[in-house]
């Protein structure tokens, strides 16, 4: 799992630029499933009995938040705007990679403490990138619309926890790939489409169109959820290492959710629950109302520092969720209505 995750947390593939990830996903899945890409760039891995009555979609989004080049000034500084809900409080003095004709290192401009009384307000006007190159050099290598990744080192912490950027939702993608590996030699009672969907962070576009094209009966969405940490309410979060967070919400299918809870109990997972009175803030909201409707459930991977370059997840949680998904699929999903 760690090796899969490390490869997936590559410095590329912000929303709208997910095709950069296609080869990595293909390589990681290898011969374990049939892999294709659709018009929007969703990557779909198919498995199981293509003629079965039931079709299950398992979704994780492949895009990551980032920045996009909007302007280059006469001194070579690059103006950027956010793609997705990046936490702007983390940006000053952060290291970035500008994905131009080559990968260029840079730093987000800031003013040192010697010259200021305080940091001021986090603001989109302040997102300027310094590569140290001249305007001519920058213009040669970088075009408007190129993506910028806010980076951090892939860091292994204690207790099988990992800190790096893009865990939302490359950790979910790693769970999908691991599940495919667990299932590859099993005979399945259903058709399964694993969707690595695009543009979740901007408007959940990929999952919406993939769900329409695939027209599944059921779907399970794997995304990052809040882990318990200072400032996060207990009812909105799960313990890192708890196994996973199962969502309960009116827009989700009770049958799918109950089945996920049932399996988690059989697997001795100490899952936490996140109950919402409306939508879930994940791809599930769009998938559930796709076509004539899709019975949908959500499991989240507990994650600290969401939408920063140092998100933290537990490898153990990812492994548990992967096992749960494998059982769910092997048993043919939820009870039929």
């Amino acid at each position, binding site marked *: 799992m760690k090796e899969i995750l490390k490869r997936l947390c590559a410095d590329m593939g912000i929303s709208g630029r997910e095709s950069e990830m296609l080869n990595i996903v293909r390589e990681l899945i290898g011969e374990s499933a049939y892999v294709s890409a659709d018009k929007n760039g969703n990557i779909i891995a198919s498995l199981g009995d293509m003629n079965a009555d039931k079709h299950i979609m398992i979704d994780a989004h492949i895009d990551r938040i980032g920045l996009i080049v909007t302007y280059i000034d006469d001194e070579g500084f690059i103006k950027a705007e956010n793609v997705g809900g990046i936490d702007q*409080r983390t940006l000053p003095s952060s290291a970035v990679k500008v994905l131009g004709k080559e990968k260029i290192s840079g730093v987000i401009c800031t003013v040192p403490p010697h010259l200021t009384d305080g940091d001021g307000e986090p603001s989109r006007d302040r997102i300027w990138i310094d590569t140290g190159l001249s305007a001519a050099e920058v213009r040669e290598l970088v075009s408007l619309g190129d993506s910028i990744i806010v980076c951090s080192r892939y860091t292994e*912490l204690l207790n099988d926890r990992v800190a790096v950027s893009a865990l939302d939702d490359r950790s979910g993608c790693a769970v999908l790939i691991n599940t495919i590996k667990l299932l590859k030699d099993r005979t399945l009672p259903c058709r399964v489409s694993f969707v690595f969907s695009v543009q979740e962070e901007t408007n959940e576009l990929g999952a919406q169109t993939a769900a329409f094209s695939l027209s599944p009966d059921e779907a399970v969405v794997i995304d990052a959820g809040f882990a318990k940490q200072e400032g996060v309410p207990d009812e909105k979060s799960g313990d890192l290492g708890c196994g996973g967070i199962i969502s309960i919400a009116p827009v989700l299918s009770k049958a799918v959710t109950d089945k996920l809870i049932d399996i988690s109990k059989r697997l001795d997972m100490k899952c936490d629950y996140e109950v919402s009175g409306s939508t879930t803030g994940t791809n599930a909201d769009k998938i559930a109302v796709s076509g004539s409707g899709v019975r949908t459930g959500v499991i989240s991977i507990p994650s600290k520092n969401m939408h920063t370059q140092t998100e933290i997840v537990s490898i153990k949680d990812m492994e548990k969720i992967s096992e749960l998904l494998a059982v769910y699929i092997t048993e043919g999903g939820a009870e039929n209505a």
Partner: protein
Amino acid sequence: MLDYKLLERLCTADGISGQEDEVRNIILEEIAPFADDVRTDNSGNILVFKKGKKTPSKKMLISAHMDEVGFIVTYINKDGTLKFEAVGGVNDSAAFAKNVKIGKNKIRGVVCSKPVHLLKADEKKKYPPISSLCIDIGAKDREEAEKYVSLGDMIAFDSPYENKDGRIISKAIDDRFGCLVLTELIKSELEYDMYFSFVVQEEVGLRGSRTAAFTVDPDCAIVIEATTASDVPFAENEKRVCSAGGGAVITFMDRATIYDREYYNIGMECAKELGVKAQTKTMIAGGNDAGAIHCSRGGVRTMAVSVPCRYIHSSSSLACIEDMEAVYSVVKASAEKILSL
């Protein structure tokens, strides 16, 4: 060219004020074959004497500091995360979501805050203060964290060093660059006898330089630093202070020192004669070891030559190699000129 491989070793070593050992050991090893006398004093400063071709009538001290800004562990929370405070001046905005190394065993951690999704309107309008942040090392609880971390452990940024296309991006260029220049001077052939000090604890109040200057008792001094270049798009005119790529920075005044006017002029003239770029600071801002040295004992005539460096006191500062080379040339020429007077 200066030895930028050595600069990489110096910058990636961790030496938060008060715990400069790693940096000191690299420097001691590098200078041993070239110095005539090397001592480490009670404060932890390295004091060096190197003979030149001639013995001058004045005693010249060239100084740089070994320490860097960082953080210190002040408390271990029940949930295994660590509370910490800044050592030296670090902006609130420079801390959150950075990778860090803790203590002698370099335990890896990351700086955490409440996720952006859950912020109230007023919380979105500011950077989370360092007092509200904590570091996660992955420990399950306090008991487990205590096995890996102790109160008082120093915390350094864990960020990469990059040298590409004529610029360097790294933590701690302030002031490992100064340490590099001193080391290169000690390795070079000198016209005159000179004294050098690699000092501790600049960032917490110019403490090492105070004792070093007392011991060496110089007549004149040159401090080598990395200083605040603020030539970014949202700063204009004098607020830019100095520019990366604009050459060696020779300062006439900062918050700690009014520099010797004749030495300032000598520095500018040397740059002109050498054909290298030089500039000055357009704001009276910051301060450095000159503040302690110039008023040591009966007074020391002092100048400061710095590399302009953007984003100092953060995990990723940026400086140009061309400026670094200019600082070295200006320092060497200015020291020789002052001693020839």
